[in-house]
């Protein structure tokens, strides 16, 4: 892929739908990997109430973009603003408002779903066991609460991470291929969650090859 193949902000049609508060503001982002420019002059804004789907071919830098925004990858140039202040200066505020689910979903295989969720909740917002059990029931894991996660299928482990979406009150969700291992009902449920989150003033940044059916969907293409 050549550097010329890069499109930028022009394909983000959010200039006119400017009703929500700007949560995330990406300015002039540039990233190069192995002498290959993944993206340059990348500008976009993510407003409250929006779901932004990043799409592009394999290897076009979708995951890299998400990891850069999360601060897991710092090989970039440009600036990332969260609610008007640069992220690197107020990392704690940003991380309090961020929920990230990557390719590796962050579910320990030897622990049970309940133990996993207790820990991940304790890092951000404390939730009691009743809330955790009801979240697991919502994602169709009733009866698996006390099974160690290595006995669960990949899709079920993905559902454990979806339960974190239910338990968190983070404003920004950054989800990397959350649909990959989900079945049809899981996909529908996650789409419902995304819409609900956007409607209640949150924002979602998601990579997927799946056709998302959510209102106020924005698209950003890479590569």
């Amino acid at each position: 892929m050549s550097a010329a193949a890069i499109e930028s902000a022009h394909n983000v049609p959010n200039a006119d739908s400017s009703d929500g508060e700007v949560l995330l503001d990406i300015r002039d982002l540039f990233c190069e990997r192995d002498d290959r420019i993944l993206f340059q002059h990348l500008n976009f804004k993510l407003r409250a109430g929006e779901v932004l789907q990043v799409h592009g071919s394999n290897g076009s830098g979708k995951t890299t973009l998400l990891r850069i925004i999360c601060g897991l990858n710092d090989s970039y140039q440009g600036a990332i603003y969260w609610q008007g202040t640069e992220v690197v200066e107020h990392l704690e505020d940003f991380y309090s408002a961020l929920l990230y689910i990557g390719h590796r979903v962050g579910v320990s295989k030897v622990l049970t779903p309940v133990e996993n969720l207790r820990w991940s909740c304790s890092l951000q917002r404390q939730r009691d066991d009743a809330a955790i059990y009801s979240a697991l029931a919502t994602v169709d894991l009733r009866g698996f609460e006390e099974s160690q996660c290595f006995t669960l299928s990949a899709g079920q482990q993905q559902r454990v991470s979806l339960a974190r979406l239910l338990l968190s009150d983070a404003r920004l969700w950054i989800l990397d291929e959350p649909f990959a291992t989900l079945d049809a009902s899981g996909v529908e449920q996650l789409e419902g969650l995304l819409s609900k989150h956007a409607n209640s003033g949150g924002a979602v940044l998601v990579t997927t090859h799946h056709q998302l059916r959510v209102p106020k969907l924005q698209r950003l293409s890479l590569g």
Partner: protein
Amino acid sequence: MNPTPATSTSAAFLATLRRDFLIAYKRKHDVVNPFMFFVIVVSLFPVGISPDPVKLAEIAAGVIWIAVLLASMLSMDSLYRADFEDGSLEQLLLSPHPLYFMVLAKNISHWLVSGLPVVLISPILAYMLNLPAAAYFTLLLSLLIGTPILSLLGSIAVALTVGLGSRGLILAVITLPMSVPVLIFGTLAVQASVNTMSPAGYLALMLAMLAAAISLGPLASAAALRISVD
């Protein structure tokens, strides 16, 4: 967005501590292997060198300390790897709490399940090696101070190498130069007691190393982890 209270750093610290204990409890072999390694290595010395009590008494302090060092390196490998592979490490890095305390929690729980048992069994092995009775207390004390230093130093090396596919000897190459001073002062302290001199000076130096390791080690580990997930 119903606002539930944000967790305090101490709550997150305790939750991480509890989580690592749970994982250690469920993955017992990670805990038992270094412990058994320590016992086996030490018990081979009387067989391999000489069952002569006088000879054994001479080498007892060094043998136990070297075996502790090797067992500690063996146990370090499991510290961050599973978390790295399943993505929990990313969650830890993205928590709004200072990474220092999160890493410290992991180091403390790791030492409690892998370092402390080795310290506790050491008097029995010292008895097998005919260590003079006067040195028992010093041995225990020096191990109690020294093994947490080894864990904190090892944590830095493991954090640096956790992203590498196969690391083999790299871990030892990074850890050993930093650990050798601990080994030197640990054995010197025990030898001083054997020769009926005061080990206080050596132990004080080790305590200083421990203070430095607790305050700086987790910072270095945290920085190394950020590099490793990149």
